[in-house]
């Protein structure tokens, strides 16, 4: 979008457009008015879903971009995360009122009709602004590639972590010489650690916060440990379910045992109890600013490899280009430039706990000094992710269908073995069902890197 020429009619039109936009919230109707106001040549409309600490970080990064790129005006809108965000993004893209740049969870990209609701990135343009494939963890980059085209440019990965309090673990003799939690390699070792921690903790608190009744967290934990066991979901062609109920049962029994052995108070708040003195909590890395703000003496590792191999559930925030009928020109270039800028200046973002996806950031001295971030940065190399199918991704259909089932096992109202069978049934049904967006099943979905 170039600079609109200044005439009385344009000004009046812009003012009218603004009034309407203000009253209806139609992003697309604010034609050029903001660019006019700021004197910038190009205006990039950017939708994101970051609130809280992430929101503040993102705004700081945008301000830095505005400062260094006065010719580009960024109009950012923060929307409620989760399904409300995806609904709005889909409708805006379908109605050709899409923003120039958006953010999505990587797992949702496959289901978001790449090619119809999303436009592919121009990788040459990205390279021009300093972002190249070799700057990324290959597995992460590949998740954004569909039918050979890059649809999602990763900003970070965010993982579930095992937060521990050094003061309690020190008393229980569970800290190594490096001041970090001693490594754990089996379920027995893990429960032994919990037992020792329990004897050293304050009374009245749980030993570990496990989000036992939260369908998202329980699902994420399941994905992590099922991956640790080497569990598979589907075959490569997405025609056959390879889900292994025996392995699933093992994971479900493991999660359940935290409750039956009395290490968890079901429904108790996790972060609050941790701040009050509970030795462990399994939380997303976005809790780092909260715990650091509370001035706790704590550490954070990836989820313990209790089934022998490392794997931590990981999702990713990624930049996407919502579909526009005539994408291109200065605005599109501005969107590429903004995304590349944020991705390559992600140290600020890392302060919020996320692991920057752009690997050169990870090797900077400043990043290496960040604690506890430097303790879990290895999670990048053993990501446990949902399968690459249209129904996967953060708060997507898969999580919605399977999350509550995992909860029922952890909470004890259903047997792990039968829950594992139920999960397989759900997976079989989902694999055969059609993506409402384009009427194709996962096998026909074209989600091939």
């Amino acid at each position, binding site marked *: 979008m170039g600079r609109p020429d200044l005439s009385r009619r344009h000004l009046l039109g812009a003012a009218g457009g603004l009034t309407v936009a203000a009253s209806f919230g139609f992003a697309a109707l604010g034609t050029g008015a903001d660019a006019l106001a700021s004197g910038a040549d190009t205006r990039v409309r950017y939708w994101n879903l970051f609130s809280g600490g992430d929101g503040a970080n993102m705004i700081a990064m945008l301000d830095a971009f505005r400062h260094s790129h006065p010719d580009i005006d960024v109009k950012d809108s923060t929307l409620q995360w989760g399904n409300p965000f995806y*609904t709005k993004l889909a409708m805006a893209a379908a109605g050709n009122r899409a923003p120039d740049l958006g953010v999505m969870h990587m797992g949702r990209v496959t289901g978001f009709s790449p090619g119809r609701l999303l436009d592919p990135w121009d990788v040459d343009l990205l390279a021009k602004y300093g972002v190249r494939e070799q700057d990324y963890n290959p597995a992460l980059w590949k998740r954004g590639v569909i039918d050979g085209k890059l649809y999602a440019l990763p900003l970070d990965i965010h993982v579930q972590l095992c937060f521990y309090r050094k003061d309690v673990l020190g008393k229980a003799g569970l800290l190594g010489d490096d001041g970090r939690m001693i490594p754990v390699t089996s379920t027995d070792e893990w429960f032994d650690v919990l037992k020792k921690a329990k004897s050293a903790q304050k009374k009245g608190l749980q030993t570990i916060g496990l989000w036992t009744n939260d369908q998202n967290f329980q699902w994420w934990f399941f994905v992590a440990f099922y991956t640790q066991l080497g569990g598979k979901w589907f075959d490569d062609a997405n025609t056959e379910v390879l889900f292994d109920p025996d392995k699933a049962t093992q994971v479900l029994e493991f999660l359940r045992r935290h409750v039956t052995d009395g290490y968890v108070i079901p429904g108790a708040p996790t972060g609050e109890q941790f701040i009050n003195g509970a030795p462990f909590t399994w939380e997303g890395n976005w809790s780092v600013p909260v715990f650091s703000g509370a001035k706790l003496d704590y550490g954070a590792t990836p989820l313990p490899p209790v089934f022998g191999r490392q794997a931590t559930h990981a999702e990713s925030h990624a930049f996407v280009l919502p579909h526009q009928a005539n994408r291109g020109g200065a605005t599109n270039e501005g969107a590429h430039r903004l995304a590349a800028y944020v991705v390559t200046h992600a140290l600020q973002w890392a302060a919020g706990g996320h692991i920057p996806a752009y690997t050169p950031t990870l090797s900077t001295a400043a990043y290496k000094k960040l604690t506890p971030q430097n303790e879990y940065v290895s999670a990048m190399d053993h990501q446990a992710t949902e399968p690459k199918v249209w129904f996967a991704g953060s708060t997507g259909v898969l999580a919605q269908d399977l999350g509550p089932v995992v909860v029922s096992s952890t909470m004890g109202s259903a047997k792990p073995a039968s829950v594992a069978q139920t999960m397989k049934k759900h997976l079989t049904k989902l694999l055969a069902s059609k993506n409402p967006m384009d009427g194709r099943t996962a096998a026909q979905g074209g989600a091939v890197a």
Partner: protein
Amino acid sequence: MTTSAHTVLPGARARTATATATVRRKQGFQHGGWFVAPFLALFALFVVWPLLRGVYLSFTDANISGDGANFVGLDNYREALHDQAMWDALGHSAYFTLLVVPCITLLAFLLAMLAHHIERGKWLWRLCFFVPFLLPSTVAANMFQWLFTQGIGLVNETFGITTPWLTDKSYAMIAIVIETLWWTVGFSFLLYLAALQGIPGHLYEAAKLDGANAWDRMVHITLPMLRNITGLVIALQVLASLQLFDQAVVMMDFGPGPELSTRSFVQYTLEQGFTSYRVGYASAMSIIFFVIIAVVALARMWLLRTREEGAR
């Protein structure tokens, strides 16, 4: 049309009267029509049109983006009838209704009696009972989420218990019912209070003179005089409770509750439409729900009519 009456024949007079009425009706529409036009326009735009559109969509496989929809006939309805999750969700809404309606009716009546008969600080009682109703649903639900939270919630602390209110399927719905009672009883309370104040005092005086005691006066005057308002309270509550959504969703952190136990019909419809993007299917479910609600409303009207006819 102002012919004097004595110069015309009876038949013509009748005709004139009819004509006058027609003219009046026409004039009435000319004036009144313009008054209701804004309402009618909005009603058509936001109720009639979406309803018709919903009926149409329910026969398609439309997705959230609104394009590429195919006509699928009755497929969505057939699927819904075999969708166990939908029946479960309907069951939860019905269960909630069964719990809430009797409790709220009785509670509203008792509170109204209390506020009506109490002499000192009348306004304070009325305020206390009614004020919760003025809170936004999210505020009320958030308050109760805190009250019921295990470990730190006021309810368990106060009574020295460890009930998992929000995390166990046998308690979750009860917690929502308790929240709903506190939050919405004020409205029914107000209806009852108004009705109580509308009962003429001379009835009670006469009864007293005849030697009726307090119980007799309650059974033979108060309750019969409140019959219509009770019918109204129950009907409004049934229709409102079946549409359970916001308080349950907020109290359960936007999830379907422990093991889906508080997932209401409305919530399931929303999930289908906005998480699974199946707008066609969600529309079919909305239509099914519309029919259920309409049947309940009609049944109530029919019951009322039979009762009134019976009373005649």
